[in-house]
């Protein structure tokens, strides 16, 4: 019984690994995606192009400008002399931000002990604008505190002291890269299993299997093994790269991570087999996989938080196994979570896995022809 299932799984492996093209598909895109995502998918800003329009020219204003220019986040691309230079610079995206110090800047300070600094920012990309504004605000607050101290003036009654847990320097790479473990272990096993039955249907070999003494359940089992094994191998490679190459801290236990990964793969493979049992051609299988993958990735919290979505969409994410696995991966990597911390993530994935595998088995029996 088990022997026959293994034989089928072995054959699946041979079929996947013998073909040079499909070997490449297993190795190439995941590595490329890891590198591209790892380096390109970042919300952290650096070298924000900023233009300075200093009409004042006093010691105070010059000190302020040197503070901004000295920050690693900003790069002064131009010193402006005229009002009409502002608009084109921002319009054409040569500068994201213009720091405008008016001519009465130091005068105001002398009279009111307070002066205004105008910051004009390109809001087309609101996230970038928001972050750039935060950076400039932080610089000014620090500048203010220093300035008050040197002047011997009273500090503000309360100050904000910020600490962040798990990711002290708030590097978005620490957030994105562990997420890639989930992304890639979703994509490849899903596509492999989603196409596995359709490929045989197209080649006509599926009939050949169905007339053997193997039962539909055994066939399904034999077909799910390669997806899980390949997912585990691929996951291992990616985990190694994230730790050794991207230097992401892995605080929690490997065991917890692999336990989560296995559950995740089971649910992925279950969904893949559901697609597989519905599709007659590989093209339909690919389409089905694509139609599942895109929403699954978007609505997983991979790049943007689930909490920002409309309620209805948030409810929808509960049936997405990737949602749970992302929390597990990030929890284990950055927060050092243990099994007990993640129980609330494990059981929904198990449930999704069981339901999808059962449904796949049922659909498989009813769409055998």
């Amino acid at each position, binding site marked *: 019984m088990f022997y*026959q299932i293994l034989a*089928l799984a072995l054959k699946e492996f041979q*079929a996947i690994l013998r073909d040079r093209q499909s070997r490449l598909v297993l190795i190439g895109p995941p590595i490329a995606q890891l590198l591209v995502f790892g380096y390109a998918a970042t919300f952290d800003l650096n070298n924000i192009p900023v233009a300075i329009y200093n009409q004042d020219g006093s010691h105070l204003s010059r000190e302020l400008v040197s503070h901004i220019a000295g920050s690693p986040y900003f790069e002064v691309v131009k010193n402006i002399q005229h009002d009409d230079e502002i608009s084109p610079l921002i319009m054409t995206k040569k500068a994201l931000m213009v720091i405008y110090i008016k001519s009465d800047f130091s005068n105001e300070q002398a009279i009111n002990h307070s002066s205004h600094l105008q910051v004009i920012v390109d809001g087309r990309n609101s996230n970038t604008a928001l972050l750039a504004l935060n950076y400039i605000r932080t610089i000014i607050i620090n500048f203010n505190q220093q300035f008050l101290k040197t002047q011997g003036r009273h500090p503000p009654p309360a100050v904000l002291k910020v600490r962040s847990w798990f990711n002290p320097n708030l590097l978005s790479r620490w957030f994105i890269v562990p997420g890639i473990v989930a992304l890639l272990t979703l994509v490849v096993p899903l596509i492999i299993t989603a196409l596995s039955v359709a490929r045989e249907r197209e080649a006509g070999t599926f009939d*050949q299997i169905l007339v053997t003494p193997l039962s539909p359940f055994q066939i399904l089992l034999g077909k799910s093994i390669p997806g899980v094994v390949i997912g585990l191998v691929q996951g291992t490679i990616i985990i190694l790269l994230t730790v050794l190459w991207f230097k992401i801290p892995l605080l929690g236990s490997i065991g917890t991570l692999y336990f989560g990964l296995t559950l995740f793969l089971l649910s992925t493979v279950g969904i893949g087999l559901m697609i597989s049992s519905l599709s007659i051609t590989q093209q339909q299988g690919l389409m089905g996989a694509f139609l599942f993958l895109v929403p699954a990735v978007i609505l997983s919290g991979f790049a943007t938080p689930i909490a920002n979505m409309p309620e209805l969409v948030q409810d929808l994410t509960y049936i997405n196994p990737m949602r749970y696995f992302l929390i597990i991966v990030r929890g284990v990597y950055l927060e050092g979570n243990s099994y007990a911390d993640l129980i609330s993530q494990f059981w929904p994935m198990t449930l999704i896995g069981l339901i999808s595998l059962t449904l796949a088995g049922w659909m498989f029996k009813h769409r055998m022809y």
Partner: protein
Amino acid sequence: MNTPSEAIIQLDNISLSFALPATSVQALDNISVKVKAGQITGLIGPDGAGKTTLMRLLSGLLKPDSGQAKVLGLDVVKNPQQIQSMIGYMPQRFGLYEDLTVQENMDLYADLHNIPVDQRASRYEKLLSMSQMAPFTARLAGKLSGGMKQKLGLACALVSPPRLLILDEPTVGVDPVSRRELWQIINQMLQEEHISVLMSTAYLDEAERCNDVILMHKGQILQQASPEVFSQTMQNRTFLAHSTALSKRHLQARLSKEAGVLDALIDNDDIHLVMQEAIINDVPAFNDIEDLHIRPTRPHFEDAFIALLKTNPDPGNAITETETEAQKSSQSSNDLNQKQSRLKNNVSDSIIKVDKVVRRFGDFYAVKGISFEVKRGEIFGLLGANGAGKSTLFRMLCGLLPASDGKVEVAGHNLRTASASARAHIGYMAQRFSLYTNLTIKQNLMFFSKAYGLRGKQQKERIQWALDEFELADYYNTNSNDLPLGYKQRLAFAAALMHQPDILFLDEPTSGVDPLARREFWHRTNELAESGVTILVTTHFMDEANYCDRLIIMAAGTELATGSPEDLRHHFKSAQNPEPSMEDTFIALVETKAENRKNIND
């Protein structure tokens, strides 16, 4: 207008090879040939001989590595577009847009050939009436039957009156009635528009109707001559043998092992013998066979074909070894015999029962109320054209498709709901020899043997048996995709036999396979049947019906006739046709049926 004797195609020392990942294949090997204008030239040869490559080269789709090719006096490399505007070409898969209607397909080809709109109507009318498709102009090409598709494909190739018509296996998979109609169109065009035709064909009886025949083999031309010249070499070498003491299959097996016999084939009620040498005014003598009656007969064109290929020894070629194989296989299947002689004891049981079975797809009835029974050890044939419903019926028998109504039983089980152990008794060979194309022969055999639960010593023995019996050892580690078609068929056959099944289901086992490989296949099948295996086989080759003990002929999902091939043929015996072939029988059956239907409609 050129005179008929002028060469419309002229090839000088043409060579062409394809690079494969591992090796390169010499598809055309230094070919020089002339084809005369104004007649039909047939291109024949076993699978992989280079026929399609040659036709593609002539239509400007491929460029030769060396040599010069001229079509209609123009060089194919330099002036492909000019040539293309003057030829009609129908590729093997007819090249129709299935989601366009008949009319739209014809419009497309008219546009592509720049035919002025005012000239179209008359041309369409002629082509449509010739192909009898006028009532179907608004039908989607995908909804046409196989024969109609071919006729439409031909009409599209003829939209712009071509000087030369190139047809690549135009009659493959087409029922005999449509085949006859296709030939009528071609002949009519030949007479009325003085075109020239070059066609390749797998049906050797069609080659007989050509004015000139080119026989290709392994990228070379073995012979070019008229069919009469081909047959003449076979004068006094062909005989019909008959014995009341032995069954046809037995007799065939015996005779094919006799010295001096080149080929022995079941031909209606007799065995058609081809001798290695001519025997003038006498018949060959075989001592140890009782009650043997031998009489001379007219040679078939096929005899010449077989003889030419068999006397062209080529190591490693599937074709030359049929004889030795036959001897070998009878020895190695002894173990099979033992097992199955046991089965032969109760021969009279019906092992397959089909009772009023129906299969609907939506509101379309693919199979409507078919009933028959198959006895143990019988070869039972399912015959019919493409779309007759035989594959649907076949799939229901194997349990791959549930029946909408009626009962299907194989060895007392419905295979769709039967336990695994019931399925262990059947072997199945799918259409198109479905194997794992990117796995090697070894991996394929390993997988199928394991899937049937064989392991250890037994598994080893069976794989060894398959390699010996089917001579696959040379290709042990070759991807099955890279195998020649004949070997793919052998491998599929071997895979289906790994577990020594009692019942064997074979779906179109000879489709696309050349005549030699077909013979070899039937040889093995006969042997299996002799050892007690029940065999259910579908085919659209009417002549293969003679190998069956009994058969059912299907058309449009219904039964046309059931019975032994002899009974069916004798039923249509007439004064004009005292010895009707299976094909004549089929056409007669279809026509009677159409007549009946007409009566009902009126």
